[in-house]
């Protein structure tokens, strides 16, 4: 038995030594294909605002780019991360190890994004986050291969928080999704509420994907705060706003403020319920001719106007491909160097720039939901109250704790 074991292992080692490859000639495009993985929430609480639409956007970008780069085909694979970090991480690992995926985009959940971004850092693959919001992604968790593309909790908290405090909403109570995203959004918003002379009187945490918000809403009501800040997103925000109306909350004195709202949420709530609400967005389909042109094409395929996550995924993919073309290779280091030096200018971002910490800085918008009378069409939902230049909206590079930032 022992002998046999020794023999087996010896032959295995020999096999390993014999077949170890001697460095192959360097190709411009490794594996002869550029493969983009769309890993996002396809079935859960955030699927309406990302999901299959994000994959549609990425496919559109590939088609618009011409379907190939440096003479090699561009492919796309999609998967549902189910808002579970373990599933996201296992899928991304499999994609990187066995499916030759070069870049992953989407990632609608901060927990998932953190896991995949870390893995991308370890395995030297590009990760362009368009969904998740936490500022951790460009601070302690940043990697040389990560880009945070569309928005983050700093910009959301700052723009909305300041606007509400200036409007007189000084006392805040938060209803917060109990994971990295919600906590980060609550912390960042609190910072700007306090800076503006307001204060946070309390908060309550709810699990992701909560069906019944009544007990949290009643805690918020009993706190006596003027503003109930919803540090959550997607179906959670919709549920909270709807149930607040059932219990007569948010009608007398108290006001609900959604800190992360997408067009699809407003659509689900209806203008009657949502009218007058203000929030921050990185994109609105009806902003100018460029956004309208893209959005109408997107609508033709997906039957809904693009959210900022979906439009962002298009832009991220497009610019990633442009960077490969400009660099003449899909080598991640070269591509990242290109991405960080080029200007991001398309319908999505007017003056975009990817910083050393991976933050894509671009203009943000303070939006307001139209009154039913103002709306001229099914998707005519919002108006832009104010455009906030990227450098004002986002965390200054000097404050980033990302080790890649040279100080």
């Amino acid at each position, binding site marked *: *038995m022992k002998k*046999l*074991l020794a023999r*087996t*292992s010896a032959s*295995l080692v020999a*096999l*390993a030594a014999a*077949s*170890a*490859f001697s460095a192959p000639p360097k190709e411009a495009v490794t594996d002869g294909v550029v493969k983009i993985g769309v890993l996002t929430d396809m*079935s859960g609480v955030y699927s309406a605002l990302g999901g299959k639409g994000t994959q549609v956007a990425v496919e559109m970008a590939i088609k618009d780019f011409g379907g190939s780069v440096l003479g090699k085909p561009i492919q796309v694979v999609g998967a*549902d991360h189910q*808002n*579970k*970090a*373990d*599933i996201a*991480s*296992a899928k991304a*690992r*499999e994609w990187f*190890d*066995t499916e030759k995926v070069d870049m992953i985009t989407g990632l609608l959940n*901060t*927990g998932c994004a*953190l*896991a995949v971004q*870390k893995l991308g850092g370890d395995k030297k693959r590009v990760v362009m986050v368009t969904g998740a919001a936490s500022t951790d992604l460009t601070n302690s968790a940043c990697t040389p291969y990560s880009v945070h593309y569309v928005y983050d909790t700093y910009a959301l908290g700052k723009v909305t928080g300041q606007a509400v405090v200036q409007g007189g909403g000084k006392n805040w109570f938060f209803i917060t999704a*109990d*994971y*990295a995203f919600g906590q980060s959004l609550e912390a960042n918003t609190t910072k700007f509420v306090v800076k503006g002379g307001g204060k946070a009187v309390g908060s309550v945490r709810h*699990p*992701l994907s909560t069906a019944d918000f009544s007990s949290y809403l009643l805690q918020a009501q009993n706190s006596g705060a003027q503003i109930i800040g919803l540090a959550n997103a997607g179906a959670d925000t919709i549920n909270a706003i709807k149930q607040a109306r059932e219990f007569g909350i948010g009608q007398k004195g108290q006001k609900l403020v959604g800190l992360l709202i997408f067009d699809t949420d407003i659509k689900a709530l209806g203008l009657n319920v949502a009218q007058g609400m203000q929030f921050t967005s990185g994109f609105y389909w009806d902003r100018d001719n460029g956004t309208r042109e893209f959005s109408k094409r997107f609508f033709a395929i997906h039957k809904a106007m693009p959210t900022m996550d979906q439009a962002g995924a298009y832009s991220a993919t497009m610019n990633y491909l442009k960077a490969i073309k400009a660099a003449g290779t899909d080598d991640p280091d070269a591509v990242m160097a290109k991405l960080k030096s080029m200007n991001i200018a398309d319908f999505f971002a007017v003056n975009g720039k990817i910083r050393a910490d991976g933050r894509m800085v671009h203009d943000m918008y303070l939006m307001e939901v139209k009154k039913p009378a103002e709306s001229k069409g099914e998707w005519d939902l919002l108006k832009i109250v104010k455009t906030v230049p990227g450098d004002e909206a986002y965390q200054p590079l000097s404050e980033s704790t990302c080790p890649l930032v040279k100080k």
Partner: protein
Amino acid sequence: MNRLAWILLLAAGLAAPFAVYPVFMMKLLCFALFALAFNLLLGYTGLLSFGHAAFFGGAAYVTGHLVKHAGLTPELGILSGTLFAAALGWVVGSLAIRRQGIYFAMVTLALAQIVYFLALKLPFTGGEDGLQGIPRGFLFGVIDLQRHYAVAGKSLGLNLYYFVFALFCLGFWIVHRTIHSPFGQVLKAIRENEARALSLGYRVERFKLIAFVISSALAGMAGATKSIVFQLASLTDVSWHTSGEVVLMTLLGGVGTVLGPVAGAFTVVTLQSELSFVGPWITVIIGGIFVVCVLVFRRGFVGELGRILKRAL
């Protein structure tokens, strides 16, 4: 089983990473060990625990935390996770064996749910995000488990694989020894007829509890190993779906057979991975297998095979 068969299995285990994606292979081994541990309880003691994920996942969190934040080497991390699972198993077991049959199952399920909520709420677990970025580290402080070797154009993490395979063999050996010891015989006597075992003078509760602790410790070892492989401990590991999955693996392979849980775990994990393209239908398929197993296939396929070959496998 004869010696040749064992040697063939061992050789297959050693050669596997060259043929199959090693991370997938390691996942198989972790779940196989988990199912083996579970079967020690269901198959050889007749106790259906519906909360074994608590030990699997609980150990994953403890190991992950100690390796990540206290800088423990992976083998010490896994040892700590295993000990934690054993201690937890002692607590859960002491409470659960006060009830029998279906109640026992429900009590373990409910207690596992407390562990789930702790994993959600305790500060070190990362809540819904899970405990991420667990380093694989250096085995005994010297062997780099992250190291990949280039073999036939593929990059294989062989160090980690053989470490996991060794742990699996250790777990398998412990289960095998336990079953075939006098202690194991008493467990079987309890399974067959608890009242008779009691009247023969065996302290039944004590035997049950010891079996429970061994089983939970090994389940913990499986979970701890998985956290090193995937560098992540998450709520899925402690959720009751995982508890249900291990029941299915054991049932499908063959309750009360030595190789059944391994075969069952391999089948279920492979199905999940190969059929991942069907999306949520996978739950339907798994549920369907469950139903078919219970209705017509209660011996599991290793059990059926054993019946045909007329020997215990």
